[in-house]
């Protein structure tokens, strides 16, 4: 009897364990109908009844830290407005650092097929277009047509495959040189308009013990911004098209000339010492603390100068923004600037009805004249959509005004070469540029190494 009882006890214990194990795995799918799994559910709930089932929509953004606080505030407003409009909707905000999202988290989720419903997305071959071709992104063309905003965007090229749209840039930017007017005045330097003047200014700052250019090259994309503009000057503004059709090679004299100029400046000590160990934020601090006289960066940085928590040493009034000057022997129109509409939002391809409703409302609330203007006025990000001259005239921030002036005075814009090459080749450009900075490679060696990988990829 006792034996039997013990046996029963052991068996019960065993089964309990098994059941406990099973219930754990089962409960995961309970709380909400996840991606694409239950379109029926979503369709059934609405008709007639007032009862609304709450549902959540995941939203991945990269607005982290003080430098992004204006952009985050805009996002918060859109989230709030969308939640108010769609009954039962609750956004689950997931803040992830830009590089981690772009290079680690999102690619892994795309591979596993479970990206968030709405997520921060970059355009180009290595990101949006790659995911779109693999069927991971929601095609937005019908939604944009329905909302009547399809033709309002200035440039959707980086988010398109054929004539289909798969992502929406949040804004635009151009890249140029920020300089510290106080430091320049202190050392008797006038605003440089030619390359000679720029180099003379750098030499003078260097002599006075001020770092000429703030630079943080721990992540290769940061110095790559300057290289990209140098290539645009030496090889001409059609670099992206020519890199992608193979007529412009990385080891051609034009691109090598760009790398050589960079190498020359590294050797002259024009960049922050120990730049390979410094991050993007540290580079900004270097400039904000007047340790460096200049900084080559994107126009999106303009909001940092009016952010009192970051800029204690200077204000927007002390910062000037100029385009990179023409280079002697440069090809094509030398007034072009590097301008991009490259970062914005993408949406998962597998959505249920509720999620699709939320996505439509999100697009409506995020991409309109009001939000675009707020982005420009509050965050200094150039609009991705056409705004009236009247609206554009409301800009008061001194740096943003100069950014707009630079854009207006330019002959046009060229993009990052990054959008025309596979991510593996792009990473090689980062490694080779860092090798130049570390004195491990010459401009020609770097160009050869990049071209070799590009050829190998093209041959695939």
């Amino acid at each position, binding site marked *: 009897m006792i034996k039997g009882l013990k046996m029963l006890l052991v068996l019960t214990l065993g089964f309990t364990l098994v059941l406990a194990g099973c219930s754990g795995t089962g409960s995961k799918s309970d709380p909400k109908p996840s991606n694409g799994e239950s379109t029926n559910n979503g369709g059934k709930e609405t008709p007639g009844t007032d009862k609304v089932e709450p549902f959540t929509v995941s939203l991945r953004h990269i607005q982290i830290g003080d430098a992004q606080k204006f952009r985050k505030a805009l996002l918060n407003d859109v989230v709030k407005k969308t939640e108010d409009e769609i009954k039962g909707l609750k956004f689950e905000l997931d803040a992830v650092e830009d590089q981690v999202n772009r290079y680690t988290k999102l690619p892994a989720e795309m591979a596993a097929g479970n990206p968030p419903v709405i997520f921060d997305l970059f355009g180009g071959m290595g990101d949006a277009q790659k995911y779109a071709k693999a069927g991971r992104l929601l095609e937005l063309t019908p939604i944009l047509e329905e909302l009547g905003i399809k033709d309002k965007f200035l440039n959707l090229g980086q988010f398109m495959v054929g004539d289909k749209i798969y992502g929406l840039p949040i804004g635009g930017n151009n890249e140029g040189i920020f300089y510290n007017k106080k430091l320049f005045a202190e050392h008797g330097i006038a605003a440089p308009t030619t390359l000679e003047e720029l180099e003379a200014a750098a030499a003078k700052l260097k002599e006075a013990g001020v770092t000429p250019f703030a630079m943080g090259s721990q992540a290769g994309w940061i110095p790559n911004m300057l290289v990209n503009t140098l290539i645009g000057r030496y090889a001409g503004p059609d670099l992206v098209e020519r890199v992608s059709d193979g007529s412009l090679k990385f080891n051609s004299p034009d691109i090598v000339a760009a790398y050589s100029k960079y190498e020359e400046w590294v050797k002259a000590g024009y960049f922050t*010492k120990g730049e390979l160990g410094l991050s993007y934020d540290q580079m900004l601090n270097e400039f904000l603390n007047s340790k460096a006289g200049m900084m080559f960066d994107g126009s999106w940085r303009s909001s940092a100068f009016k952010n009192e928590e970051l800029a204690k040493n200077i204000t927007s009034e002390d910062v000037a923004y100029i385009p990179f000057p023409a280079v002697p022997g440069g090809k094509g129109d030398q007034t072009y600037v590097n301008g991009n509409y490259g970062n914005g939002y993408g949406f998962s391809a597998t959505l249920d009805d509720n999620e699709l409703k939320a996505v439509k409302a999100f697009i409506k609330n995020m991409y309109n004249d009001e939000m675009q203007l707020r982005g420009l006025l509050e965050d200094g990000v150039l609009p991705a959509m056409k705004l009236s001259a009247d609206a554009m005239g409301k800009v008061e921030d001194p740096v943003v005004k100069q950014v707009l002036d630079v854009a207006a005075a330019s002959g046009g814009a060229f993009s990052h070469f990054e959008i025309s090459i596979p991510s593996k080749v792009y990473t090689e450009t980062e490694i080779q540029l860092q090798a130049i900075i570390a004195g491990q490679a010459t401009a020609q060696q770097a160009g050869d190494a990049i071209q070799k990988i590009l050829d190998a990829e093209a041959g695939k």
Partner: protein
Amino acid sequence: MRSALRNPYVYALFVIPTIGLYFLFTIYPMLSSAYYAFTDWDGLNDPKYIGFHNFTTALQDPYFQNSIVNNMYFILFSVFVQVPLIIMFAILIGSVKRLQGFYKTTVFVPSILSTAVIGILWQFIYNPEVGIVNKFLGLFGIDTIYWLADMRYALWAILITNAWQWMGFYIVLVLAAILAIPRELNEAAEIDGAGGFQRAIRITVPLIKPIISVIVMLSIAGAMRVVDIVLVMTKGGPVSSTEVMASYMVNRAIRYGEYGYGTSLAMLIFVIALVLTALYQLTFGRTKEEVTY
């Protein structure tokens, strides 16, 4: 009860769930990686079988070769620098009479900190401008050293941080072995006129040989799979000078989206680790003789 335990089904009942989980989370992923390693899978499109192409590419890949060399530095550093230091500190702590518990806890603390915390902590220590290391070297007139930004120093900086993180754990292991040595042995040696150093070398070390052998093997295994500290401190840079096999594999698989190539690298890492530990076991790691007191 006894009859219940004699019943094979009862054993099966307890073992099957675990085997099931083990199969699901260990065996199945291993088998599927073995498959993906022979494909060009990019994580997005359907994999295509490409034979040994990934493996031949990997063996000729200069970045992978470089990361193997860096892993070897980790192994050499842990075996020839870390292990002797561990033994030394363990003997020192083992012979103190007062505050032994305090020392034990202190050396153990780093190994309970998360690697992210340690990485950030040491980034401050190595900071070229305000870091304590450069401040100290500055006293002797040594110029600013960019520890994590200079290819010549970055790997050393990480080796030291990694050693600092894990030494405490091993010290406590060795210490336990030392404290288990009967006191009489040391006392007898002392009466015979052996000094502290002689006792350490001739009595303590030979008696803790088995545990030393274990920590050497754990160090080799640890050095083979080191990755987190590298990712936190330098992300493999500057210019791949601190790239290790695992960080390179993660980069290739996830950042470049080359899951097929990444899994082939993972398999190569597995094979290298297996060969190294087997070599160690067959040569130095043999501890056939039981230690008898």
